[in-house]
């Protein structure tokens, strides 16, 4: 096995979780050399086969790791919050309708949440962000190996954080709608 092929294979091994690599990386390189020694195949063919196998096996292993799973969930959660923040723009037409109703009937419409509650959106957003940060930090503190109790705590904290951040985003949208609907309040 050429030094170049082994170096390339070590790059392929980076696709696997670091803990798995530490445990089995040297053996996998040893196995690659064994294959080259005993099989009637070119080293590039063997390297290609092992790369294809890594493309199947490595993502599955990464998903099995609680640490990676929480990062993926956090990214999805953040994307959901961003989508909600963007979606609040859709409330502008609602506010316009509210203004129209106010002019038509002489009183503002009740939008999403009371005006007083809407002013607390920053608190909800900060609390949600803090909870998500704590949820992400839990596996880092514990070295990525979570028992059932810590896994449950982490998931509840993450879900709570996403819920609070979502509430904050909705209240922010509600506050904007209030301001648009009631020009005298702003």
């Amino acid at each position, binding site marked *: 096995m050429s030094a170049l092929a082994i170096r390339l294979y070590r790059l392929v091994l980076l696709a*696997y979780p670091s803990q798995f690599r530490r445990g089995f990386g*040297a053996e*996998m390189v040893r196995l690659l050399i*064994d294959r080259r020694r*005993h099989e009637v195949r070119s080293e590039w063919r063997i390297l290609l*086969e092992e790369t294809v*196998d*890594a493309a199947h*096996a490595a993502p*599955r292993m990464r998903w099995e790791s609680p640490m990676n799973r929480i990062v993926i969930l956090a990214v999805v959660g953040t994307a959901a919050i961003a989508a909600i923040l963007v979606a609040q723009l859709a409330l502008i037409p609602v506010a316009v309708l509210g203004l129209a109703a106010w002019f038509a009937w002489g009183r503002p419409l009740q939008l999403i949440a009371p005006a007083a509650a809407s002013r607390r959106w920053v608190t909800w957003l900060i609390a949600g962000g803090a909870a998500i940060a704590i949820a992400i930090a839990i596996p880092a503190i514990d070295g990525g190996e979570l028992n059932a109790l810590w896994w449950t705590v982490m998931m509840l904290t993450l879900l709570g954080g996403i819920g609070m951040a979502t509430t904050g985003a909705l209240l922010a949208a509600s506050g904007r709608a209030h301001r648009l609907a009631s020009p005298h309040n702003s």
Partner: protein
Amino acid sequence: MGHVGDAEEVEGFLPLPASVMHIVVALADGEKHGYAIMRDVAELSGGAVRMGSGTLYGSIKRMLDQGLIEEADERPDPALDDQRRRYYRLTELGHRVGAAEHRRLLSLVDAARLRQLGLRPGGAW
């Protein structure tokens, strides 16, 4: 009561994933290192199953975590072998789980035979 608990413990592993059962069968006649397991699996399956190193060591890691296999301390022939290689062997639990999966597959094959699966064109009279 102990037997019931043991049976439940074994049943909890079934059905075994195909890759795990192949490794169990490969290790049934003694300890082997990674490449020997890979070669044995390919031979036993007539070349139909070819495990890559990621699939093989991913399964080995899970089986070590589950207590189905363990690392063997001694080498079969230290003079002829690379000391850096690790050898694996079935644990007592691994033997029992393998035997239970063997029985499960046999009963499935018996059922297929009883219904003459593959012997009747179209699978129905």
